[in-house]
């Protein structure tokens, strides 16, 4: 069954984990450029990691039966570097991912995920590696993510996760969709405009 896209307050996410190993996985790999030829994001879910999956001929984590329906992705260092394409988190989200845990994330990717209501949580290299090994041993484990407690746990193990304060607040309060907040106080935008020399003949 298809999950709904994130909306409102993000706090509890429950589900199974799949892991993608490797540092510096760029957004060209998450969604190769040829799939950006579209005016809607709707078809991207099937195309996520297209070239990596083709190369592994069905052995890629996103193709393995045991990971069908998984909604938590565990990655390594500098995940999502390169192009700013929101198509990358869109593709992950449309495949079913609702939470990403990694050693670190590229900045634009992190922001793009935040704008979709997908938390990008960090943990140490050792913790990530331990988590990845646990998933390798048993991918059927159900994990409970708790944003408020900054943790993910199953019946036996619990891992502490980190998230910078701003993103935490936005997700927890449900105010990660920025548009309405930005439109909140139009007058303040107009004041900024009035004080910008280059929009006022450099007066």
């Amino acid at each position, binding site marked *: 069954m298809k999950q709904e896209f994130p909306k409102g307050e993000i706090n509890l996410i429950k589900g199974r984990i799949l892991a993608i190993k*490797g*540092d*510096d996985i*760029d957004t*060209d*790999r998450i969604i*190769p*450029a*040829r799939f*950006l*030829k*579209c*005016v*809607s*994001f709707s078809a991207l879910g099937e195309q996520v990691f297209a*070239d990596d999956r*083709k*190369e592994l001929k069905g052995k890629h984590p996103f193709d393995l039966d045991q990971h069908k329906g998984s909604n938590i992705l565990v990655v390594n*260092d*500098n995940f999502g*570097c*390169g*192009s*700013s*394409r*929101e198509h990358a*988190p869109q593709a992950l989200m449309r495949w079913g991912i609702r939470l990403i845990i990694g050693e*670190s994330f*590229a*900045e*634009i990717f992190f*922001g*793009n995920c935040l*704008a*979709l209501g997908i938390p990008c949580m960090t943990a140490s290299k050792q913790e990530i590696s331990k988590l990845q090994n646990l998933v390798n041993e048993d991918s059927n484990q159900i994990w409970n993510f708790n944003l408020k407690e900054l943790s993910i746990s199953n019946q036996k193990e619990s891992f502490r996760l980190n998230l910078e*304060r*701003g*993103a935490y*607040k*936005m997700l927890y*309060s449900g*105010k*990660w*969709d*920025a*548009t309405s*907040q*930005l*439109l909140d*106080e139009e007058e*303040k*935008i107009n004041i*900024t*405009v009035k004080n*910008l*020399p*280059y929009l006022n*003949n*450099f*007066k």
Partner: protein
Amino acid sequence: MSSGTLYDKVWNFHQVKELPGGSTQLFVGLHLIHEVTSPQAFSALNEKNLEVKFPNLTIATVDHIVPTLNQQRPFSDPLAEEMLATLEKNCKTHGIKFHGIGSNSQGVVHVMAPELGLTQPGMTVACGDSHTSTHGAFGAIAFGIGTSQVRDVLASQSLAMKKLKVRRIWVDGSLQKGVYAKDLILHIIRLLGVKGGVGFAYEFAGPAIEKLSMEGRMTICNMAIEGGARCGYINPDETTFEYLKGKEYSPKGQKWDKAIKWWKSLASDSEAKFDDEIRLDGSSIEPTVTWGITPGQGISIKEKIPNPEELPKNEQQIAKDACKYMNLEADQPIEGTSIDVCFIGSCTNGRLSDLQEASKIVKGRKVSAGIRAFVVPGSQKVAKEAKQKGIDQIFLMAGFEWREPGCSMCLAMNPDKLEGRQISASSSNRNFKGRQGSANGRTLLMSPAMVAAAAINGKVTDVRTLLQE
């Protein structure tokens, strides 16, 4: 925390308010859009029944999907045509100026906006493209955004952002003959790593930076993002003002004098505080080439491909992956590596001086047999000026193809692609797996002059051996 830097000053001018989540609502002075990352933003705007708040502060062009051989409409690729038609329609509906095919001002967005004088010191510039950092060359805060943020900027001319830390990268000395801005930035990314800049804006400063032309400066700032820094910038100076003077959108008359006064006041103060500082000597940098699958995997032309076992532990795995993917052997010199395709162009190196420098290497010589070499000017203006100077003829006579402007093989969202295991010498910005359109195609990043040298010899070549008067 930084203070007194250009970044701080420009940030303060554009701060609208603090948002509840702790980020800042930042006003965007120039919003650039193109066909790839804007259609879904316009759809979202329509769904929310919102208007474009300041249509005059958004400028559009088409670049990623345009074919470079035949730009007749409709494009032969129906998907590409649909994307362009969608952008045209959205611009028309919302009253946004569109620089389209045949307008004489179309081009790669990061080439055409500066040459029109749209990009100016002190602005905030946002675009749904990570290489927006390019515009920082003018002393602007310029950064790439995702499609949700494109929607936000269209709706409110602002976005939610956290202030970055500022790292000054001070480059002493001056670049040697045959060494270009591209070599310098590849060298910097090699030193600081592909994620060294995460959380930072890079200020590039020092004698070697000041001596660069605006086009060289754009190459540097363009690739700040490849080092993880969302924006890079250079303080505005006489070189900046000279470049902007008389450009279509530059201030004129009395406004020009006032503008210069303001622009000068924005440069980082002599006692500015940086969160981090790094110093290096530009005179010792040699032509630099990437050998791997991240822009940080660069070495000088005189070096050997590193042995993964001898690298720091955290670089070993990616180096092993790179050797395997590139089919290059550790401890072998990069010089002499055989090449199949040579590409000169992109938002990094598709400007007039890039083509000019490369043409000096090519002049009177022939492309090596079996090599496919082509030049893609960054914009219609670059193409026109290059033709006026006879640069196109130099390339054509040597056996290069001369194409129409676009992003071309930098990211292969158009018919220009590597095939199979082909290996390219490329003046673009990314050597990621599959980046140039073939799932197992390979890319060596280098300066346009180095690409030209590779085309002539059919292999990676030290351009300094081919410099001619």
